[in-house]
């Protein structure tokens, strides 16, 4: 992979300063969402609404991990869609299997 050698610093031995502010920002966002989830888990009675809030907050967390930590936000549009379209279809499949699949319980159990 000779094309990567172009990334080498111009003067060997000279190391650029770290740029980590965005990493810590993402970390605090994910921590805050997790803390909020615990707050809801202990203050709100179990209900469909509570479960929906949990799932939405989880998707928020997943967005920050995939977009920032896995760098997907900064990849080409083609790669973003290559990953997101199958994931979207997968979520559709998951919802369909769980809602429609309950029929098998009525049929065989």
């Amino acid at each position: 992979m000779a094309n990567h050698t172009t990334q080498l610093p111009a003067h060997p031995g000279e190391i650029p300063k770290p740029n980590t502010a965005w990493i810590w920002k993402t970390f605090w966002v994910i921590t805050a969402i997790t803390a909020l989830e615990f707050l809801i888990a202990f203050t709100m009675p179990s209900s469909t609404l509570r479960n929906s809030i949990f799932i939405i907050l989880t998707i928020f967390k997943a967005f920050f991990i995939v977009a920032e930590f896995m760098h997907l936000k900064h990849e080409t549009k083609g790669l973003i869609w290559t990953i997101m379209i199958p994931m979207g279809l997968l979520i559709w499949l998951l919802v369909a299997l769980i809602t429609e699949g309950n029929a098998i319980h009525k049929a065989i159990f």
Partner: protein
Amino acid sequence: MSTISPTTQAIPDSALDKPRTGTWDGGNEPLNASYGKLMMWFFLLSDAFTFAAFLTTYGLIRHKYLVYEGAAENFVTSTAYWPIPEKIFNAFPGLHGLDLPLAFVALMTMILIFSSVTMVLAVEAGQRFDRQDVQKWLLWTILFGATFLSCQAWEWSHFIAGTDKGMLMNDGTVIHGANLAVNEYGPVLFADLFFFITGFHGTHVFSGICLLIYCFIATTNGTFEKRGHYEMVEKIGLYWHFVDLVWVFVFTFFYLV
């Protein structure tokens, strides 16, 4: 077959000993990502299918059972309904008998999220060719990963050994702990799914730690520096974040919902 001429004559010199750079010769990077990173993304996509299958199974089986109705403080385990997680996962190492709902799993979640942060820091250091920083952050990631795995080992052994109270059966026997055939927490499938889903995730964490240890050794030996890039750290970083991502979902569906 005497008509075949030596290859040196058949192929012009301009075509020899040159890397292929044509669009269809593997010379370019489709989607602007290198071969390795692209393949890691596709592997992770297929791995997501596997975990989605597990979570679908969990959702389907959970819907088959009744929901526990009533106040959480009056909760007793029964095979008639699905248990509520904060009454099952309420133990903490060294604090025997105390009711600390979800405290230990909160700690585990924070450890894994933190290991993801140290992993990004390692990737960032690799892009700056800062070998010492890469080593430092990889070591932290290995440490947090191993801590998470140890926590899971404790969680499993506690789940298997069970509580002092156990579950009283109709014939007067008391069940303590859990295995694949019987458990004190609720329906048999509750423990089965716990073992399969957290076990499969734990196996992923274990593989991740092995890859990170390889990465640390290669960094220390200067392998990546000689290669001219730290792309291996980035690829293993992708895998590590995926493991964290899966835990975010397992945590929601197993411990919160």
